[in-house]
Structure formats: structure tokens, C-alpha cells
């Protein structure tokens, strides 16, 4: 009898455990599923591969990664997502591409998953993800088409997102008796002083095309400028825009030799090799400066907020990830996205050397990451509208601004006429694309 009782209790316990396990494992239904992820072969994503292994181990969902050079990523993704049945279940895009992907009907709105109780982790806490990152990379269809608003929807979550901070050489500033600049006036003053002392001041992107435009845009937002007013009239000849161009010219004159040939890699290398005293661009410079293969300045770098002009405004960029409309494994893909951007996943990315997207992760990891407190303080100022994320932006960015700003930084021609001419060209493009038919 006792034995029978014990067997009964054991059976009940086993049944309870198995039932509990069945309910406790939201991944069970998808075990054995294979999803294909398309993302760039960049540092953050390479480091995430270990997180993927852990995801597979925990969930039973297999993940194949198609990591491509980031310049080839868009063409490949567009090709795959245009098919009736594409290969990709998760795609990671540069934030500039989100409008194009959505306008072509290539992405799945994430709301259909957030309404499914069996998929959503109640501890996910989406409000903990930095607003600027989420708005910049994941929201489409609201104000101006690419900002949040009542007509907007969420198509992606940030993963590998970034903002800009100032990195500076503590040793040089100390030797020269300089204060770290907090405003643009101070920044320009420091640039002039460093140049006078024979030290290249601020490195920057400056190569013709989107690189020089990116360099200029970093100054445009804090100086109070915009690309368009609220009626899509270009205002790249405004006093603020001209002042930002003037700053670019000063950066080239006081910075390391060759800025007009620098893309991001060259600009960063100039700082990391000790050939410039400051770097004002993405926060990724911090991880790079700690990497002994890339950097000669580890331990000498300090971080500060992006200097303020008439307002504070740092860049928002990098990547977000979502689910193609033609994916065959959407729910498993959502579980993957949720896993890698969860609190635990974000923390794990920090441990693996990647960039977090959550405020709590930034606040909880100050040890060994000097830039995190600065980034956490910078993010409320990050401007998701620092550049327009519209399909025409490529042409404006490369053909119009990319050419005009090259003239600014490689000649001594007056800036206002250069920007006036660029403004006219931008207007012609917007007119051609039908932006003024309602006016």
C-alpha cells in the first residue's frame, strides 16, 4: 500500500513537473525550427554569435547567420525580401533603410506578435530600451513618415544602435591645460588652441558623398539646424546649416591631414593611432580604443557629452532588426529578437563586447566602461530626427550635400552661395518626387 502510495505521489509529481515544464517553456513549440538571420559582418554582430549559440541551447531553435559586408547588405536583403518566399526570417538594417523597406511592403509590423500572450515575455520591458534608438530604428509611418506618431507602427527593435559622444585624449588636454569642451564655442576654441600648439585637433569623416555629409550632420543638430522644415522645404542654407559647414571647414583646417579622404574607418584610425586629440562621432570609438589590435591610446581616453550649441542633439544611428513579410518562421524569429534584446540578452552583449540598447544595462555596467555613464546621460538628448529617413535621402545625401560639403572643406569659397546652390538642388529633387503637390 505504501509502495502504491509512493508510486502514486511520484506519478503525480512527475505529471505536475511535466505540466509545469510544458507551460514554462514557451519555446517548445518551435524546437527544431531553423531561422535564417541576415546582418552585417561588424564587430557587434560577430560578438553576438556566442549569444546565438546560447539561444539555440536554451530554446532548441537553430539559427543560421548570413553575415555580409554592410555595404552589400541592403541589395541582398531587398532581393530576398522581394521574393514570394524569402530565405531570411530576421533582417538587421541600417536605420536609414527602414522607410524604404516598409514603403515597399517588405517588413512585418511587430504589433501582431505583441498581441500574442504566448510569445511575449512579461519581463521584456520595452520602455527600458532607449527611446531615441527605438524611434530611430524601429518606428515607421508616424510624423514625417519615419518618426513616431499616431499613424506610426513598430517594425523593428534596435540591436547595434548608437549615438555620438566626444572622446578626447586626457593626457593631451592635461599637458595643454585645456578644459573639456561642453559647448560648440568651447569646442572651436579648443580646436584652435590645439592647432596652434601643433597638435591635430578633431578628426572627422570628410570623404566625398555620404561620409562628409555625416560629418556635417553631427554638428548641424546641436547648432539648431535641420534638413527640412515641417513642409519639406529644404533649409540647408539656413544660418545654422552654414555655421555647421563653417565648423566642418575649421575641423579640416585644424585636424589631422587628409580629412577630405576619411571615411569612418580612417577618421577613427587617426584618433586611435594618436594622430588627433578628439573624436566626435559614434560611441563605438570607446570599444575600439580598448582593443589593442586597433588602438595605441588605451587608458588615455576620456569621454564627454556631445558639445551643445543652441540645443543638445547627438546622432542616432546604427542598426535595428525586424522580420521580413515573406518569412516562413515569423514567430520563432520574434522569439529570437526578443531574446537578444531582452534585459539578460543586452547584459550578455555587454559581457561579449557589444553595445547595449537598454538604459538599465548602461546604468548597471559602469565598471570598466567609462563611456556608459556618458552615453546614458547623452541618450535623452539623442535626436532621432537629425537626418531625414526618406527614400530621397540617398540622393540628397550623396549627390547634393556630399558634393557641396566637399567644396566647403576643400576650398576657401564663401559657404553661403555653396549651400544656397545645394538648397536649390535639394528643392528640385523634392519637387521631382512630388513632395509639393499638396502646397
Amino acid at each position, binding site marked *: 500500500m505504501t509502495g502504491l502510495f509512493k508510486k502514486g505521489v511520484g506519478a503525480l509529481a512527475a505529471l505536475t513537473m511535466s505540466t509545469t515544464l510544458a507551460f514554462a517553456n514557451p519555446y517548445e513549440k518551435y524546437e527544431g525550427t531553423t531561422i535564417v538571420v541576415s546582418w552585417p559582418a561588424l564587430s557587434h554582430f560577430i560578438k553576438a554569435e556566442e549569444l546565438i549559440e546560447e539561444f539555440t541551447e536554451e530554446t532548441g531553435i537553430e539559427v543560421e547567420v548570413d553575415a555580409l559586408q554592410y555595404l552589400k547588405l541592403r541589395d541582398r536583403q531587398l532581393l530576398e*525580401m522581394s521574393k514570394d518566399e524569402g530565405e531570411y526570417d530576421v533582417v538587421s538594417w541600417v536605420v536609414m533603410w527602414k522607410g524604404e523597406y516598409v514603403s515597399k511592403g517588405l517588413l512585418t509590423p511587430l504589433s501582431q506578435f505583441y498581441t500574442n500572450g504566448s510569445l511575449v515575455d512579461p519581463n521584456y520591458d520595452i520602455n527600458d530600451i532607449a527611446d531615441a534608438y527605438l524611434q530611430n530604428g524601429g518606428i515607421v509611418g508616424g510624423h514625417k513618415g519615419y518618426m513616431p506618431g499616431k499613424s506610426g507602427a513598430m517594425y523593428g527593435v534596435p540591436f547595434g544602435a548608437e549615438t555620438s559622444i566626444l572622446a578626447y585624449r586626457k593626457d593631451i588636454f592635461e599637458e595643454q591645460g585645456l578644459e573639456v569642451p561642453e559647448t560648440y564655442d568651447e569646442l572651436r576654441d579648443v580646436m584652435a588652441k590645439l592647432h596652434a600648439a601643433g597638435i591635430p585637433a578633431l578628426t572627422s569623416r570628410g570623404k*566625398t558623398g555620404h561620409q562628409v555629409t555625416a560629418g556635417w550632420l553631427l554638428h548641424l543638430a546641436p547648432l539648431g539646424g535641420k534638413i527640412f522644415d515641417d513642409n519639406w522645404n529644404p533649409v540647408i542654407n539656413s544660418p545654422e546649416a552654414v555655421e555647421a559647414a563653417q565648423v566642418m571647414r575649421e575641423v579640416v583646417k585644424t585636424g589631422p591631414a587628409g580629412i*577630405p*579622404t576619411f571615411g569612418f574607418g580612417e577618421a577613427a584610425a587617426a584618433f586611435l593611432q594618436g*594622430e588627433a586629440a578628439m573624436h566626435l562621432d559614434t560611441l563605438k570609438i570607446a570599444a575600439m580604443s580598448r582593443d589593442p589590435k586597433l588602438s595605441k591610446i588605451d587608458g588615455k581616453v576620456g569621454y564627454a557629452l556631445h558639445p551643445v550649441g543652441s540645443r543638445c542633439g547627438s546622432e542616432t544611428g546604427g542598426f535595428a532588426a525586424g522580420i521580413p513579410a515573406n518569412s516562413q518562421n515569423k514567430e520563432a524569429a520574434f522569439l529570437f529578437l526578443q531574446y537578444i534584446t531582452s534585459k539578460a540578452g543586452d547584459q550578455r552583449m555587454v559581457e561579449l563586447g557589444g553595445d547595449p540598447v537598454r538604459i538599465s544595462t548602461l546604468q548597471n555596467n559602469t565598471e570598466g566602461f567609462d563611456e556608459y555613464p556618458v552615453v546614458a546621460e547623452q541618450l535623452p538628448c539623442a535626436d532621432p530626427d537629425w537626418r531625414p529617413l526618406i527614400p530621397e535621402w540617398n*540622393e540628397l545625401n550623396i549627390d547634393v550635400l556630399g*558634393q557641396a560639403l566637399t567644396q566647403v572643406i*576643400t576650398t576657401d569659397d564663401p559657404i553661403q552661395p555653396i549651400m544656397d546652390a545645394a538648397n536649390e538642388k535639394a528643392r528640385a529633387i523634392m519637387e521631382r518626387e512630388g513632395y509639393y503637390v499638396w502646397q
Partner: protein
Amino acid sequence: MAHADMDTQRLDLPEPMPQPRFQAGFITPYAFIFPALLVMLGGLLYPVFMAMYLSLYDWQIGLDLEDAPFVGLTNFSRMLTDPQVWEVLWVTMRFGFWTITIEMTLGVALALLLEKPIRGASVFRTIFILPLMVSPVVVGLIWRYLFDARVGWINYYLGAWFGIEPQIWLGDAQLAFFAIVFTDIWQWTPFIFIIVIAGLQALPSEVVEASTIDGANWWQQVFLVKLPMIKSILVIALLMRLIDVFRGMEVMLIMTGGGPGRSTELLSLHIYNRAFETQQLGYASAISVLLIVIVFAISTLILTMANPMKSRSDV
């Protein structure tokens, strides 16, 4: 009578068999030509006609072609009034003029110097053709770093040997243009050299010896005997380089990306940028059609003025 017999005999001959419409050997040459014809149609004519077709649409990557709006000749009218197109065409023509002129001169001069068996000639020849073996992307990378303003060897040695201040070679419009011309000359002069030296070595020695006996000096032999005799080879070399100038873009893409401004943006690079940077495939196709027309016109002109086949038959 004899004639009558012969006629009778001829009349008695059996009727000749009707000739088959296709003799056994008739089909053979066409059978051999067919695969090449197929490759030509598939690999050359199809893309050309496709480019012409696409140029009539406003097509962007990611949209089905069926969904792309038909715009007729709009892309062509936009192209003809687009100052960017004329600007890059001018850059391409300047680039072609300087590179081809210098490459032809240097290539021919080197071939004339090394045509005679001199000590170490084979080593020189091998060294001269090395740049031809390097892929254009690698050439672009090598010279991009050699011309680098901060760490490039060119600035270093100009400073160390001549005391010249470091130059921002690829960040200044004129210097960048010079840099891409220099790089192209470095890579393609060996091509002219190798073709011309092959032509010179194939010349019949009797003609050159005869000119020597007639008292011609070295210069007269070069300009009145040798070069006229290899004219067909020179024309082919010129034509191939000219087509390459309009076709090539890899080195410029890597070294300068077409900048600063558009100072080094050749027509082919401009087409690439239109197609894959600004995603205007229809417009890029229209400019491609312009490129085909230009190359076809120049090739026809050169072949008409100095037909290598004609001069070969003259010889």
C-alpha cells in the same frame, strides 16, 4: 561526225543527280559558330537590350519590374539635361586622353628599347608586366595607401628626399586626378608594352635589314618602317585601352570613390553610383545606353580610319 559522236555520247550520259540543298559539309561551319553565337546573344546582346528596356522604366531595387512605372524617354531627357552626366563625361575624356597618350608613348618606347636581346631583358620584361597581373581592386588599395596623406610612402619619400611638404593627394581635386592617372599608367603601360613588343619581334628581319642597307638611321627605322608595319597592332591596343577607360571603375571606386567632388568620377562609376547608391536603376540604365553609344561610335570611328584588318591584307 566526231562531234556528233561526242554529242551523242554526252547526251547518253545519265542525268546528273540533283545537288542536295544541304551538302554534308554545309552545316559544319554554322555548327561551330553556333555556340559562340549563343554566348554573344546571351552574354552581350541580351544585357544591352535589357539595359535599353530598363531605361524606359523608373525601377528601384526591391520593387518588381512589373510594378515599376513606365516613363518612356524621361530618363533620357533627364540625362541629357543633367549637368552631372556632362561633368563626369568630361572627367572621363580628360582621363582617357592623358592615360592613353602617356601609356601608348611609354609602352611603345619601352618595347623599342627592349626588343633587342640585351642582358637581363627577360627580367625587365617580367618586372614590367607584373602590374598587369594584379587585380584592379588590389591596385586601388595599394595606391590608396601609397598616396595616403598621413602614412603613405609617397609623402614620406617626397619629404625625406626632396623636402616636399606632405600633400593630401586624394583629398584635393587636381592631385586626386593626377593620382588616378598615375595609377592607371602604372597598371596599363605594360599592356601596351607586351602587345607592341610581340608585334616588333614578329616583324620580318629582311625589311629592317634592307632599311639599314638603304642607310636609314634608328629614328627613321622606327617611324618609317617599324611603327607603320605594326599599325594594326597599335590600333587594336588603342581601341582596347579606350574601351577600358569607359568601362573600368574599380580602381577609382577604391582610391577616391570618385571624389573629391566629382574630380575622379568616371562615367562607369557614375552609373554604378546611380544604380546602387541612389537606387535609380532605370536612370542608370539610360546612362549605360549612352556609354554603349559612345564606345560604339568611337570604336567605329577608329576602325574606319585605321582598319587593322585592311592594313593586314595590304601587307
